[in-house]
């Protein structure tokens, strides 16, 4: 589904990302881990064509993302609060995204109904604008908005951060369900090793912009990751 070749991004002679080859097949739940500055968000931004690659390219379903915009209808993302429109209420925001993705109000409502649990009665009908919600609730709204319109690729940057434990567990269920039963390719980054090993079939470790581990998740993965990152800490 997503092919990355010879991709690099350089700012003022500092290479922040350098991925020679990375293929993510359709329907995979893919996890990206790495310390601050490892290049996770840079990779996602390149994937969404928000920044330009210095060399190389990414193909999303055979669409060259830096050249064509045809990847947009089947790709959605929540990276940070710049994906939220602060002066809208959550409902208005969902309908707006829905309209952009060709969904009418009823379809959006039907989708939202499935996430009643996830919202925990803190998002809808609260008479608050998105800008006035807490960070965690903003994130919930952003994540659900990324699910509108049956996207085939969903990119979530640090979806677990700022969420309460209950919501984290529910989110894990949602992500697993998307990849396993609906065949959606889900890309997730996280600092929480336990969560990624829980939800992702495959985990890639980035360090200073390079892929240094590419693991198919198994029983041993969490141990291996923990060993790796505590090793990094000791160096």
């Amino acid at each position, binding site marked *: 589904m997503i092919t990355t070749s010879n991709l690099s991004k350089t700012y003022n002679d500092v290479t922040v990302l350098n991925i020679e080859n990375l293929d993510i097949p359709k329907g995979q739940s893919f996890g990206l881990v790495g310390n601050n500055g490892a290049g996770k968000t840079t990779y996602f931004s390149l994937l*969404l*064509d*928000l*920044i*330009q690659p210095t060399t190389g390219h990414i193909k999303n379903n055979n669409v060259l993302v830096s050249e064509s*915009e045809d990847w*947009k*209808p089947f*790709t*959605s*993302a929540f*990276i*940070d609060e*710049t*994906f*939220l*429109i*602060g*002066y*809208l*209420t959550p*409902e*208005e925001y969902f*309908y*707006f*995204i829905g*309209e*952009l*993705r060709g969904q009418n*109000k009823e379809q959006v409502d039907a989708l939202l109904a499935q996430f009643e649990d996830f919202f925990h009665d803190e998002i809808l*009908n*609260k*008479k*608050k*604008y998105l*800008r*006035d919600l807490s960070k965690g609730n903003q994130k919930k709204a952003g994540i659900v908005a990324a699910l509108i319109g049956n996207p085939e690729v969903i990119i979530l940057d640090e979806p677990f951060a700022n969420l309460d434990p209950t919501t984290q567990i529910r989110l894990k269920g949602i992500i697993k369900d998307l990849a396993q039963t609906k065949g959606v390719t889900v890309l997730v980054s996280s600092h929480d090793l336990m969560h990624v090993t829980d939800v992702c079939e495959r985990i890639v470790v980035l360090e200073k912009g390079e892929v240094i581990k590419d693991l198919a998740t198994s029983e041993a993965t969490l141990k291996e990751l923990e060993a790796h990152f505590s090793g990094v800490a000791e160096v």
Partner: protein
Amino acid sequence: MIKHFISLEWKSFFRSASFKVNLALKILMIFGALYFIAIFAALGAGSYFIIEEKMKQDPLVVINKFLIFYLVGDLAMRYFLQKMPIVNIKPLLYLPLKKDQVVNFGINKTIISFFNILHAFFFIPFSIVLIIKGYNPLGVIGWHLAILGLFYCNNFINIFVNNKDAVFYSVIGVLIALGALYYYDVFDITQFTQPIFQAFYNQPYLAIIPIISAFVLYKMAFSYFRKNFYLDAGLAKKVNIAETDNMTWLNRFGSVSTFLKNDIKLIKRNKRSKTTVFMSVLFIFYGLLFFTGFVEAYDGPFWRIFAGIFVSGGFLFSFGQFVPSWDSAYYPLMMSQNIRYKEYLESKWYLMVIATIISTVLASFYLYFGWQAYAAVVVGAIYNIGVNSHVVLWGGAYIKTPIDLSSNKKAFGDKKAFNLKTLLLTMPKLILPVVIYAIGHFAHGEVLGFILVAVSGVFGFLFKNKVFGIIEKIYKAEKYKTLAAYKQKN
């Protein structure tokens, strides 16, 4: 302790984003400030003679008569522009500082604010002239101190009423009504207020009253903030009760309605955009300077068109030049969605057209100054809709200033908004219609001038799709630069 506060202030002032400009602009800004100071000072010194000569009345009496409106205008201006002293205080809360000190400092800061000093440039020269002209010095000093006290009352009142929109608008509403009643000779509030101000001159010791009230208001402001000095009280961000509004009535605009709904909410729900609307209302009255002959330099016939463009196009200019910056806060979202640029632009265009039409209707009172005045407004509106709406959007495509919707900072011009490209684009906006009118005016007369401007407006309308195509190309070409620029918050 006070040393720390002052050094913090100093740094926040000189490290603020508006100071990070190049030297030439800095010098320009200094000249600009000096210019305004000079204007006010000249007005202060000169108004005595102007009033004496033109109105043949005692200048002090005349000033006292209008002082009530001046004071209220000052309060209104403060309400919109003067920032609250308490905003930057959060990081100081948990530090080992006495709360009284912090609150005191915050309020004291407002005392030396620009909004207070500005008036000194008017009233000090005026008072000096009064003394020179043989008014009783003691009386003048008393009067001057009383006015000073009143301005400080305003200063502290503003601290209370801030964020109390309902109170503020009702007070302003009542005073505008009184102003209108005065204008139409129905009821003259100045009859009651003028003697009060006059009394400060006649009985200088009365000046103690406004000074004491300023002091009392200071104490009240102090205890108000001291009491509410908690994150969930006085320092809390005001949270508006949100109404979900699906604006189904806009669906008749078809596919554009998606964006149009958003844009209307954007204007309704954000401070910065509300200021833009307020400013465009002021622009409607800008023409008064031209059509009343108030400023002699503006009497030439060509200035009419110039005025007409501004009267009808206030919103068009102040809103349009910042498209797409209005959406800067969530630009990455827009760029990762399937945005139909044409509909996006069209929505902004509709808004500007609607605002231009409303302004033109509201400006019908210019008929009072003769049909030429209103004709200028109407053809100005046609030209604005036909030509300027496109040009403004075009210019906006080059402006990459992120807009903070929740604050009024930089609402009045932004140095990044002036680059060579946007400067070049002002030519067709303002100069071209004046030239077109001049051609018609000289060839045949004012009617032909008006017709030519209107025709060129209609003609420009034909190029709408072409220009939208160009803007779309610019948006795409500049996408990464724009995203990077919007990311840099001040």
